[in-house]
Structure formats: structure tokens, C-alpha cells
């Protein structure tokens, strides 16, 4: 059916093979090898449209290989590889299988050349990923998973609706650059937006990611949102509204990240924020900005994974990721701490770390196009990111007040995964050219200029200064066991309350109606029985006289009628 072997099939084959391999190291090894093979295939694929075939009357293109899809395919394979090493110790067949399927679906989606195949993989990521949440096997995770799944599939059905409308209008299922216009493109846009966690559509993310298993969160953080970024970059590059959406996304999670107690949720908010940068880049839409988006996606997958891995390791050893319960772990988990700091430095865009060479592309891209306010906003967001992810996460986990916990260092596989990731973060930061070479457009950008380094360092160090000062002054909000209301309050509290109210209203009205109806029916039946039952008027044995009376009545009436 295809002239090239689609990489997603490798994952599916791997997922099918996995349960047959003895659980333990052999199986973990198989799982880790799969993304390597996939990366090789992706690397070797020539550019162009491949894997075209017809399914139920639809022309499908399974493989659209160009620079944009290739780099996403590669980074997804890389992320899967790292996450699977990190998850080497996991012995849960479902998690293992689903992790592979999830990565496979994401890679499949990236190479999808038409909306139908995109939709197929789009839903695939939703279904496969939810198992990583459910696998936590708690009541809370179950409910979170249901919410997550509904939102994710919801994104899929909105995409489907958009496709249907698109098809109805144009008769084409091609997935090309679109212009926001009619309901069709809006639906597709919103579908992408849900997975990209646009403001107010973002709640699934802080809801779900902290709920997943230790390893699950690492895997989750890599694919879904970056896939959405890819889809937006492919379909809506240069759509102006994205700039403002992105800017909003870059700011408001910052506040939540600062006051959030659960460190995995802090990281989720920061992930959301990083997506904001990418979305701005897509909105700006110039070659520079798009390069920035792709580069930032690449870098952010790695450092975000690294951060999630390190906090995951803490969770794995201590049973909690709450800032209020952690602290002082640097003594016993120094390597994890260092990797966390590397991740933190990367997300904060310290020079020589990966964030520095990618984020600046976006900032430059926006300022080149004259979006000065947006530029300012992003600058603020960068500083904010440093506060909550660069300082807060490592500080409260590893330093701060000694919690008294003395966990062992993370297991070897986690350390290995974190080590490789950390190495990559630094490598990209130090020597970005290989990544730049992979970007969709020619890169004429030098990240390391004096101005850039100095200004960036100023920004970061003064942010750190502000943190220190306010911390010392006791103004910085203390970490407390708490949850913070977010927009999901609307569907976790308000919605159910409304539904409950409406339902009780309806059910009482309905109950009253049914009750009245039943009484009516019963009364009717009783009346019927009185009239028609054994001794009823209409069924009793009548004396002859009465019968004759009836004859007389009928005769009389008929005669009367005839004489009228």
C-alpha cells in the first residue's frame, strides 16, 4: 500500500510484539529499540509525498516528508527513546504498550499528509495517552483520565466536524495552510487549539499531567501539545490571532505556576507557557519565527522532559511532588538535583543552555515584525518562567527547608535518561547548528552576541534577585497544601452543580407528572374495571327486564331519529 515503510507502523508492531516479550529487561529493551529504528527510518526518508492510497473513497497520504515533519518526527522519536529509558523499570504491560502506541500515533500524525489520516492519529494520541493517566490506578486518576479523554476526543470530533465542513465546501481533504474564515477552518483551528492548550481550553493539561504515573507524565509532556504546535504551524502559520493567543498563553500560567504547590503541576503550567511562545512564533509566521517555534518545540520537549523526569524521580523516591512537603533533597539526590538545575537553566534560557538558542528566535521574530507589546509580554513571560521553573521547582524540591526525607538517589535508568537529556540540553545550547540545520527554513541567526548574552543574564539575575529579596522579606507566597481554582472549576464544580440543579428540577417535575399520570392511569383502569369488570355495569349478567328495556330504548331512539 505504500512505497515507504511508515514509521508509525514500527511503533504499532512494537506495541503488538511487546506483550509477547518476557516482562522485565528484555521487554524494556525492545521498547527502547523501537524509537531508535523509527528515528533511523525517518532520517532516511526522502522528502516528498509517500504512502498514498485510497481508503473508503478517500485519498490518503500517510507520509508527507518535508523538513517540518521530519524534525518533529525525529524529536518525537528522541523523546520516546528517552522516556522509555526512564520507564525501564515499569512492568505494567498496558503502560508499556500504550506509551509506544502514543508515540507512534504522534509520529504518524506529524507525517499525515491529509486531514483524514491526521484525524486518525489525532484520536490515536488521545486514546493511547489516557492509559498513562489511568495507570496510576487511583480514583482521582480515573476521573482525571475521563475528563482528559473527553477533552482530547472532543478536540478530535471538532477536528472531524471541521474536516467534514471543509470537505463539504471544497471537496478536498488536503492538509495545507489554511486561512481562518468559515466554520470549517474555525473548527479545525479550535481542534488544534484544544490540544495546544489555548487559554480557557487549557485545563485538561494541569488537570491531567500531574495525575499521570511517574513515567506517564514524562511521556505525556512530549507529544500531544507539540503535535498541536506542529499542526498549527502547518495549517495556520501567520494567522494573526495566534500572536495574541500565544501571548496570553505565555503570561497567565505564570501566576498559577507561582502559587501552585504540586511541582508537577507547576511544570505543567510552565509547559503551557512555553507553548505560548511557540504559538506566538506561529502567529508571527515569518521564516525566522517559524524556525523559532520549531526549534523551541525541539528544545522544550527535551528540557521539559528533563524537569518532569527529575521531579518524577523525586516522586518515585518520596511519594510526593508537593513543594510544601519536599526540601533538602540535594544531599541524597544530588545527581537528580543537578539534572533538574540543567533543565531549569534550559527553560530559563540561560546562555549555553538549549532554551537560549531557541526562544530568542521567537523573540527576535516578533520584534522584527514590530509586535513590540508582544515582545514585552514574552520578555515578562521569560522572567516569569525563570521564577517558577528555574528557581521555584529546584529550590523547593532540593533546597529550601529540609524536609527530613533522605531518599536514595534515583534508579540508574532514570539517571541515565536524565543524563542523556541534560547532555542534549547543554549540547544544543552550546552548539545549536545541527538543530538549526534541521529547521524548516534557512537560519541566519547568531544567538551568541554580547548584547543578547548580557541582556539575558541581566534579566535572569535580576529576576533571581527579586525572588531572593521577596523571599527574604516573606512576601513570596509560602508553599501550602492547597489547590487553586482554574477555569476547570467551571466544569468540575459549576457545571455539575448546574446539572444537578437542573436535573433535580426536571426530575421533580417529571416525577410529579409521572405520578399524576400513573394515578390517572390507575384511576382510569379502576374506573374501567368498575364499569367492565366482573360485576361492572357493562359485564354483569343483566336481568331480562333490563335487556328488554335496552331494546325499547334503542328502538325508540332509532325511530325518533327516523322521524326527525
Amino acid at each position: 500500500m505504500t512505497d515507504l515503510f511508515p514509521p508509525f507502523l514500527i511503533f504499532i508492531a512494537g506495541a503488538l510484539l511487546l506483550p509477547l516479550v518476557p516482562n522485565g529487561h528484555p521487554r524494556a529493551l525492545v521498547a527502547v529499540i523501537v524509537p531508535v529504528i523509527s528515528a533511523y527510518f525517518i532520517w532516511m526518508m526522502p522528502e516528498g509525498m509517500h504512502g498514498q492510497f485510497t481508503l473508503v473513497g478517500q485519498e490518503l497520504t500517510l507520509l508527507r516528508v518535508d523538513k517540518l515533519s521530519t524534525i518533529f518526527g525525529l524529536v518525537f522519536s528522541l523523546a520516546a527513546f528517552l522516556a522509555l529509558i526512564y520507564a525501564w523499570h515499569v512492568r505494567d504491560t498496558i503502560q508499556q504498550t500504550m506509551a509506544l502506541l502514543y508515540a507512534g500515533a504522534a509520529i504518524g500524525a506529524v507525517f499525515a499528509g491529509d486531514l483524514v489520516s491526521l484525524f486518525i492519529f489525532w484520536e490515536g494520541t488521545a486514546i493511547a495517552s489516557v492509559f498513562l493517566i489511568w495507570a496510576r490506578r487511583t480514583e482521582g486518576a480515573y476521573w482525571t483520565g475521563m475528563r482528559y479523554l473527553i477533552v482530547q476526543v472532543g478536540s478530535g470530533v471538532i477536528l472531524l466536524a471541521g474536516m467534514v465542513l471543509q470537505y463539504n465546501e471544497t471537496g478536498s481533504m488536503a492538509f495545507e495552510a489554511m486561512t481562518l474564515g468559515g466554520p470549517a477552518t474555525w473548527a479545525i483551528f479550535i481542534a488544534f487549539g484544544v490540544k495546544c492548550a489555548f487559554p480557557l481550553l487549557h485545563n485538561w493539561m494541569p488537570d491531567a499531567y500531574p495525575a499521570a504515573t511517574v513515567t506517564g507524565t514524562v511521556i505525556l509532556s512530549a507529544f500531544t501539545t507539540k503535535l498541536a504546535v506542529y499542526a498549527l504551524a502547518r495549517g495556520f502559520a501567520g494567522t494573526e490571532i495566534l500572536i495574541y493567543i500565544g501571548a496570553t498563553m505565555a503570561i497567565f500560567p505564570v501566576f498559577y505556576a507561582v502559587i501552585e504547590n504540586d511541582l508537577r503541576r507547576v511544570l505543567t503550567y510552565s509547559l503551557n507557557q512555553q507553548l505560548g511562545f511557540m504559538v506566538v512564533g506561529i502567529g508571527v509566521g515569518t521564516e525566522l519565527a517559524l524556525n523559532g517555534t520549531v526549534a523551541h518545540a525541539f528544545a522544550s520537549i527535551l528540557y521539559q522532559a528533563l524537569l518532569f523526569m527529575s521531579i518524577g524521580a523525586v516522586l518515585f523516591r518520596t511519594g510526593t511532588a508537593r513543594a510544601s512537603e519536599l526540601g533538602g533533597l540535594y544531599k541524597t539526590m544530588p545527581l537528580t538535583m543537578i539534572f533538574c538545575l540543567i533543565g531549569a537553566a534550559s527553560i530559563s534560557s540561560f546562555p549555553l543552555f538549549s532554551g537560549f538558542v531557541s526562544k530568542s528566535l521567537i523573540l527576535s521574530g516578533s520584534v522584527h515584525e514590530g509586535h513590540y507589546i508582544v515582545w514585552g509580554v514574552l520578555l515578562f513571560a521569560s522572567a516569569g518562567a525563570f521564577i517558577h521553573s528555574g528557581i521555584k521547582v529546584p529550590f523547593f524540591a532540593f533546597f529550601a527547608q529540609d524536609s527530613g526525607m533522605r531518599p536514595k538517589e534515583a534508579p540508574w535508568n532514570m539517571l541515565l535518561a536524565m543524563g542523556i537529556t541534560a547532555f542534549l540540553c547543554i549540547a544544543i545550547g552550546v552548539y545549536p547548528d545541527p538543530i538549526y540545520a534541521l529547521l524548516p527554513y534557512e537560519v541566519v541567526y547568531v544567538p551568541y552576541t554580547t548584547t543578547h548574552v548580557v541582556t539575558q543574564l541581566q534579566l535572569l539575575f535580576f529576576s533571581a534577585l527579586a525572588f531572593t529579596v521577596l523571599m527574604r522579606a516573606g512576601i513570596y507566597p509560602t508553599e501550602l497544601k492547597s489547590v487553586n481554582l482554574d477555569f476547570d472549576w467551571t466544569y468540575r464544580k459549576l457545571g455539575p452543580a448546574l446539572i444537578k440543579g437542573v436535573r433535580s428540577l426536571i426530575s421533580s417535575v417529571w416525577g410529579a407528572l409521572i405520578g399524576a399520570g400513573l394515578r390517572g392511569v390507575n384511576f382510569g383502569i379502576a374506573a374501567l374495571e368498575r364499569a367492565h369488570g366482573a360485576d361492572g355495569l357493562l359485564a354483569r349478567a343483566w336481568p331480562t327486564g333490563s335487556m328488554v328495556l335496552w331494546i325499547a330504548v334503542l328502538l325508540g331512539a332509532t325511530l325518533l331519529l327516523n322521524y326527525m
Partner: protein
Amino acid sequence: MSSEMKTPETDPSKLPWLGRKLLWLDNTRNVGHIIYALLILCAGLVAADFMYHKHSYLDIEDIPGFYAAFGFLMCAALIVCARVLRVILKRDEDYYSPKDIASEAYPEEQLSRETIND
């Protein structure tokens, strides 16, 4: 930072090598040193602004120490705002319970809680 709570003493020999090396952070005075270092670094960076030709797109960037001021003020504002926001947004951990992960412990069998004392 405050250490009202007495931290349990751990035998340093059981700590990993790197952990032992980092133990000097336990000392409050050393933390003070770090803060001084930070201050000096900050001052140095502002001073550096005067020593090279800034490549700027915006006039505002040309103000010496613009990024420093921007970073400091914005972060201070952010933290203050967040503090105010928390008053509005904070709820008990079991606000969404009993069907919420915030109010339940991570399942023990999926963890490998090992301490250095084991």
C-alpha cells in the same frame, strides 16, 4: 530558609559523594555568601551594559540596565500579584475530593521508596 524546625541529623557518611560535597549549603552563612555573590553579579551585569555597543531594535532597550530593571520589577510584580491571586484562588486540597488526585496519596506500590538508611 528559616530553620525553626529541627532537621533530623543524618550520618554524612551515608550520603552519596556529591551530596557530601554539597553539605556546605546547610550552613546559613554559606547561603549568605551566595546571596552576596548574586548581588555582585547583578551589579557587574548592569555595569557591563556600559561597556559594549548594544544591538537593539527598540529605543527602550538602549536604556542602560533596562533588562535588569525590567526583570526585577516584573518579577516583583508577578510575585505580589500571585500572592493576591492566591487569596482568591486558594482552596483546600480536598476541594474537589473525593475524586481528585490532590487529595489522595500516590499509590505506594508504584513507588520505590528507598532511603539512604535502608
